[in-house]
């Protein structure tokens, strides 16, 4: 177990390091912060001074080593724009994002999974077809279209809900809905196919042949087996709790991580972008770790494999 955990931990750190390195290189290759921050018509001296002040005049690999060293000492850099701690800027935005993503995740789980399971158990019925159709609509319509559609219906036509901002809880409804619809569709599809697969297994027939009531067969014998693929998808969704709101936050002017990311990338605010990516990578890695542990708990066969 200790060996398993340490391998996992090492792998997690390598993943995060890879993300940081990639972000570091790409951000610096794809545009000059000095140009963006200072504007097009500034004298060359100012640009040079700016570059010198932020260490951008150094060779890339020296910048990189300095960056990695700083990270390991807990220094995540300073925002070029606000001159404040980049990490603090990011952390300040997290609650706003979670205000959307956590309720959205909740909706995905409590609507998507039951809908998929119900459809699987009533295969070929009208409800099943309805669920499939709705699920396809849900996850094929991109969130920027879905968001605008909801604004059109609920804000402009019906005038029921605000179309942007973060003033009241009503402001959160449309972005949360926009964010959850695709996930509901994906979870419904996955739960349905997982459940159909499980229901055709010999052990389900055994449970029925034993004389178990149908609902007990479903609850006690089928669902625990269908849980593994469903947990995988939910794990991805948990992993994207911080990253998942970029488009939706932009549409609904919601001051979360997603908007900070868009603004910071546009401004080439390197430290902030890197901090956000670090946070995103960390949540992904942690949720993957949790999913791996859950696998072992859900399926004893996987437990046996990972022990070896």
């Amino acid at each position, binding site marked *: 177990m200790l060996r398993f955990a340490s391998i996992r931990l090492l792998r997690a750190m390598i993943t995060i390091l890879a993300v940081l390195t990639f972000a570091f290189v790409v951000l610096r290759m794809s545009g000059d912060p000095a140009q963006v921050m200072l504007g097009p018509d500034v004298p060359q001296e100012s640009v040079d001074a700016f570059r010198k002040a932020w260490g951008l005049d150094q060779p890339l690999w020296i910048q990189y080593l300095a960056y990695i060293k700083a990270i390991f000492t807990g220094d995540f850099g300073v925002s070029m724009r606000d001159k404040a701690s980049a990490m603090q800027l990011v952390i300040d935005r997290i609650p706003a994002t979670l205000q959307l993503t956590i309720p959205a995740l909740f909706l995905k789980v409590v609507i998507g999974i039951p809908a998929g399971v119900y459809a699987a158990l009533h*295969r070929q019925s009208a409800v099943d077809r309805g669920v499939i159709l709705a699920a396809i609509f849900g996850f094929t319509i991109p969130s920027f279209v879905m968001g605008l559609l909801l604004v059109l219906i609920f804000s402009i036509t019906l005038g029921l809900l605000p179309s942007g901002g973060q003033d009241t809880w009503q402001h959160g409804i449309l972005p949360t809905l926009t964010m959850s619809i695709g996930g509901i569709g994906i979870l419904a599809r996955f739960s349905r196919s997982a459940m159909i697969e499980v229901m*055709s*297994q*010999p*052990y389900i*027939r*055994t*449970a*029925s*042949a*034993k*004389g*178990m*009531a*149908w609902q007990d067969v479903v609850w*006690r*014998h089928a669902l*625990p*087996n269908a849980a593994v693929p469903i947990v995988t998808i939910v794990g991805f969704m948990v992993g994207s709790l911080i990253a998942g709101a970029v488009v939706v936050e932009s549409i609904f002017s919601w001051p979360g991580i997603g908007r900070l990311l868009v603004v910071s990338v546009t401004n080439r605010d390197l430290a902030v972008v890197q901090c956000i990516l670090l946070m995103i990578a960390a949540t992904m890695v942690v949720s993957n770790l949790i999913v791996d542990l859950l696998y072992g708990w*859900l*399926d*004893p*066969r996987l437990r*046996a494999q990972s022990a070896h």
Partner: protein
Amino acid sequence: MVSNNLVELRDLKVAFDGIQVLHGIDLTVRRGEAIGLVGESGCGKSVTWLAALGLLPGKATVAGSVRVDGQEILGTPRSVLESVRGKRIAMIFQDPSSSLNPVLKIGRQITEALVLHRALTGQAAKAEALRLMDMVGIPDTRRRFDLFPHEFSGGQCQRLMIAMALAGEPDLLVADEPTTALDATIQAQILDLLIELRAETGMATIFISHDLGAVSQVCERACVMYAGRIVEQGTIEALFDNPRHPYTRGLFDAIPRLDGPRERLIPIPGTVPHPRDLPEGCAFSPRCSHAAIDCRSRRPDLSPMDDGRLLSCFHPVSHSTDLATVAANRVAEAVS
């Protein structure tokens, strides 16, 4: 008065998506007796009993009558079927390893049946489950109670399936090819176990198999099935010593012999017809060396013979047929 007939199947028919696969099975299972169901894959042996217990998928349509102790169960509400399954008629399956739920501890899977059928709970259920595991020959039951199916071998999984089936103290155990997925030595052990348990508990047994040797060990009677019908039914002695249906005869000719001189096995030419395009007349006629014109136009009914067996054939293999001639004909036909 309790009738001696435990289960009666009458004109049991099954169709999948409109394609008839079972064409009216009549079978009476008496208390305590062991009946073999024999035939090639796809002849409807398993489907018969899955249909009787309502275990076929939704696309199957089942017609006819299934009576348990005189009470009709076909077409009754799910709760009636659930009270028969496991309690009156228990079933074990071909692939024991995938027939046990991989994510539930084995002890729990057995106690579930005890809770359902014998109203045992807690320690009493556990004690009884341990006794059943012991009874089917699982060593070190206390430790293994909390193991998962993948931690047992195939043979042990089948033993556990049997323990689970015994939990409801059923009147009939339907064993659907219980040894097919196991290797030969384990097969023999499982057969012995089934024979032993039947002697101890007095439950009737339906033994579904294409292994005639196994059937002869376990059963007193057997039904030979072909393309969704019973073609010959009789005592093991009658069928083994003197098979009358050419198909039954063919099955015996295809068994290698351990004793006696080594002989070339005589295969049955051709393959089982697909249920969608069954030949007219007797379904076996295209593969039958005895077939005459009438076999290809009319279908023989399953009728009682003088010696008590049931037979569905216009031109049965006669008692005194020179076996060598038949064999030679068969080979010639197969080669041509």
